[in-house]
């Protein structure tokens, strides 16, 4: 049954990959219909993948509780939250006031708080990293400070040319670097895509060996 684990997924990848890719190059209705059908199903599979992810998280948490691993008690909180909130959404509906209240009063502030910490870490990191130790560091320092000042209203109060200079940094040197990176990544992705379609890349079926 090794073909079921290895060859079948690669065959499906080959067929789906070739059809979806060919649809981008040829205006042929049956091909477009098949490509659309594959894409609709991929959305469905993505939803199943989310369920699989949640189920796996529950399995891992249950294992941690059974094995009494470090901080195992928190896994109870995680499991109760996942199961409880899922059941509430399934039976009461996602427009239920309690469902929305938990989302707006617990989840939103908690996640917003965690992301807000980043401002403090960034302040500390900027202070430590932006030292004019050499020419490259000076360029980084000047560009960073100029963009930071140019993007806020007070920048034009300090010097009215600052927003223009910040815009130039973003539009010219930064765009040039991002374009070159983008082209490099795109070429790499084409390579990985082709390797996956023709079956050279096998990591996604759990195989580590590549020919």
């Amino acid at each position, binding site marked *: 049954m090794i073909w079921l684990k290895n060859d079948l997924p690669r065959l499906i990848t080959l067929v789906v990959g070739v059809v979806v890719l060919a649809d981008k190059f040829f205006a042929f209705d049956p091909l477009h219909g098949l490509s659309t059908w594959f894409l609709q199903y991929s959305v469905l599979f993505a939803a199943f993948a*989310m369920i699989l992810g949640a189920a796996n998280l529950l399995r891992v948490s249950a294992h941690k509780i059974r094995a009494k691993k470090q901080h195992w008690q928190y896994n109870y909180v995680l499991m109760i939250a996942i199961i409880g909130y899922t059941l509430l959404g399934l039976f009461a509906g*996602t427009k239920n006031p309690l469902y929305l209240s938990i989302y707006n009063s617990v989840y939103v502030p908690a996640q917003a708080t965690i992301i807000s910490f980043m401002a403090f870490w*960034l302040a500390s990191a900027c202070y430590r990293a932006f030292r*004019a130790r050499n020419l490259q560091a000076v360029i980084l320092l000047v560009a960073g400070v100029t963009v930071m000042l140019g993007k*806020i209203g*007070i920048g034009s109060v300090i010097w009215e040319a600052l927003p223009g200079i910040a815009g130039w940094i973003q539009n010219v040197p930064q*765009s040039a670097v991002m374009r070159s990176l*983008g082209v490099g990544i795109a070429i790499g992705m084409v390579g990985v895509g082709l390797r996956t379609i023709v079956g050279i890349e096998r990591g996604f079926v759990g195989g580590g060996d590549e020919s």
Partner: protein
Amino acid sequence: MMERLQKIDRRIIFAGLMLMIAIPLVKPLQLPVNISSETRAAYDLIEALPSGSNVLIATSIFPSTQAELEPQTIAMLNHLVKKQAKIVMAPCYPDTPPYLLKYAKMLEDAGYVEGIDYLNLPYLAGEETLYAAMGSDFKKTYDQTPSSELWDSISGVKSFSLVIVPNGGRHPLYVMAHISTPHAIDMIASITAVVLPNVQPYFNSGQIGGVVSGMNGAAEYESLVQVPGKALQGMAAQSLGHLWIIALVVLGNIGYFATRGKKAGGV
């Protein structure tokens, strides 16, 4: 003394930043808003829409991006309401649907009717695959959507005059690749500030028609539509926060050069 400038305690850095952010909340400050070419282009795209145009908002707003994306979304919704656009909102991230309920309420307060003037589509998983499916056959992708005047008037993705993509990641690039460029539909990327470097080259090349970036982009849009909101309030806090960071950088460098000179002299 100069060595101390290089080793300012982290708690002082944090307390200073908190103080700088808190000052404008206690005493609001009025700071000038410079309109960037990216935000101006986004505004012009919506302004040029004929009355009653269909607009798709493929959004993936969630709590971490809310501070930046929500003021942008609200400012653009205010503009779309002024233009009497028909709005279809598609959540593309699992955390997004509750936000759309809020925006639906806002639209209804402005006289919009669900199914006629606006529509909330269900969340679908898939991210880039979802956008590819939407670009391939929009109606089939959302084939469980109940019939309504607005939904029935949409035959496919080409029925939209504009796509707005509020997101804090790569979604604008996915939409550009699978929807806006292949179907020649105008697009606005509504993004967190950190994403701007990824999006900027595509704005410069004309593939993305407008970009509203970060809280400053939201503040610019609020000032363009003349509906002050959270972004204009928040910009004062952000400005003072930036100034604090710059002050720290300057102090650190003063300390670095002063002690470096001493060390060099001592050798």
